[in-house]
């Protein structure tokens, strides 16, 4: 593998700096990385051969590092299960750089050259030419997406706080250590999704869709509540009416919502989540006025805020329902 000049980088929420603690203590964190074999081309081996070769390396790494659970093969990646102080698994994706004509096609679809050039060709067990030498592999651009998302984060303040409390500019630290408003917003939105779909995980909107749409909808707001409210309000503008519903800005042919084509429940539940989070956000000012803030935060985000941090409930008139008149209505029935 070394001969192919591998370039390994983190991907997904760890790269973006939008990781959330799992709802349940028993659940695992999801890590992703991408391994680009820079000196390998599609004409040298089949997708299966690349996948298997990489798999051998991963297995060797696993046994060399005392990882008990066997390495698991997934459709596009290999999965390593770590059990340490924190439970997590790592999905590692082998790929090769894409060819220039593919990059050109991506630029034609609307992406910038700088994003498009990071595109890679990936293996997929479902691909019809999985076992053939072919130029025809699936394309993906996770690194281009990450670069785009980082650009959107930068729209916010260039100064933000780090763990140590010192202030620095975005250029001094790697993106996953930033704590920009956009990243925080994505974390809050994902958490809301986690709690809402706790018992219905199958059709829950996926994190890539939320991250993508939040990235588009964010406009540099500094205040967290303002940012989340505006993001949620503008999100629908960036969902297309047909496939690709939620394209990767670094490759418009890559649709993060490709499952929406196969089963409308995915899209239905996205809009349900959107309605629910919009409603919850608009109710927060009322929660702040009343005495149920802690209970609401628990039921909506499953977080418990120490009472010292909560605003004092203001002595206020009880918020009443608007008065209505019902001059006439249906007569109730019964069987």
């Amino acid at each position, binding site marked *: 593998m070394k001969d192919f000049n591998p370039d390994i980088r983190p991907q997904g929420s760890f790269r973006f700096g939008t990781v959330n603690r799992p709802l349940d203590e028993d659940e695992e964190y999801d890590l992703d990385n991408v391994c680009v074999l820079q000196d390998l081309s599609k004409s040298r081996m089949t997708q299966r051969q690349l996948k298997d070769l990489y798999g051998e390396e991963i297995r060797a790494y696993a046994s060399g590092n005392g990882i008990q659970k066997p390495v698991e093969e997934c459709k596009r990646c290999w999965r390593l299960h770590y059990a340490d102080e924190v439970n997590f698994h790592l999905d590692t994706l082998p790929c090769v750089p894409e060819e220039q004509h593919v990059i050109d096609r991506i630029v034609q679809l609307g992406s910038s050259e700088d994003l498009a050039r990071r595109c890679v060709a990936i293996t997929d067990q479902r691909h019809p030419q999985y076992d053939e030498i072919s130029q025809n592999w699936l394309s993906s651009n996770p690194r281009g997406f990450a670069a785009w998302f980082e650009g959107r984060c930068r729209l916010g303040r260039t100064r933000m706080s780090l763990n140590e409390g010192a202030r620095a500019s975005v250029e001094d630290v790697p993106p996953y250590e930033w704590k920009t408003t956009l990243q925080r917003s994505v974390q809050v939105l994902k958490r809301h999704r986690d709690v809402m779909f706790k018992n219905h995980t199958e059709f829950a909107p996926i994190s890539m869709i939320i991250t993508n749409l939040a990235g588009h909808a964010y406009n540099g707001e500094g205040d967290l509540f303002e940012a989340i409210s505006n993001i949620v309000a503008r999100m629908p503008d960036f*969902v297309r009416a047909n496939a690709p519903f939620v394209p990767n800005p670094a490759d418009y042919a890559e649709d993060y919502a490709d499952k929406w084509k196969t089963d409308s429940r995915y899209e239905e539940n996205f809009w349900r989540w959107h309605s629910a989070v919009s409603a919850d956000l608009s109710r927060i000012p009322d929660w702040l006025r009343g005495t149920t803030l802690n209970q609401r935060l628990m039921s909506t985000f499953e977080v418990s805020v120490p009472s010292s941090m909560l605003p004092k409930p203001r002595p206020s008139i009880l918020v009443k329902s608007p008065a209505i008149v019902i001059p006439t*209505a*249906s007569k109730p029935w019964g069987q």
Partner: protein
Amino acid sequence: MGPVSLTLRRHSALQIDELLAEQPGLRLVPTSDRTTVVEGVVCFNATGPTGIVIDDKYSIKLRIPFDTSKELPEVWETEGRIPSDFHKLDANKLCLASPIKIRMRLVESSSVAKFVSEFVVPYLYGYSCFEQHGEMPFGELSHGLEGIREHLREMFKAETAEFPELFLKLASLQKRRANKLACPCQSGRRLGKCHNRIVNAQRKVYERTWFKNEFKRFEILREEESKQLNQVAKLKSLLGMPSASIRQ
């Protein structure tokens, strides 16, 4: 905003956002089928036709099926405040109104917000009035078939019709044919010289096929009810009881 997907259009027509804004105590619950489920507290501060003011709240669960032409929305009051003998279907579902009336409204609009404000809130207001003052502010329908007939008499403005379901049949026919038949109000005149105006108006809004299906549904209900009545009559004769009509 540009063109939207069919799924989004359908979601927007349900007016979930409007419902959640009007009723801040309600929450949307995800489902793995295509039904829409909302749960939580409904609040209202309402004055009815007799002037009674009720400021109250109830815990409910609301389930809207994907195809409301085939299934009705279902509503439950989840704290056991409303007793099972108060206008309820089996399994404690609230009987908000005549099913025909509910289906009529759903033909006009799939908005859940409208459904709640038009059917659920008045029903709950009605129960509060009944609980606190012993009166039913909007009246009430009888149970079963007779209750539906009462609603149909109102709908077609024909209080004298013994079998107002015949209006459903007539509305399912073409105007020319229907007008030649006897008016169900029992005036002795044919429809064309009697209640034709209202039948024509309703036919225009809901269409013949809708009325055909409603009439079929009514017939099915009538068969079921007559089966039940026969069973009760048999049981009574076995027990040596007088077989007077069980519904007065």
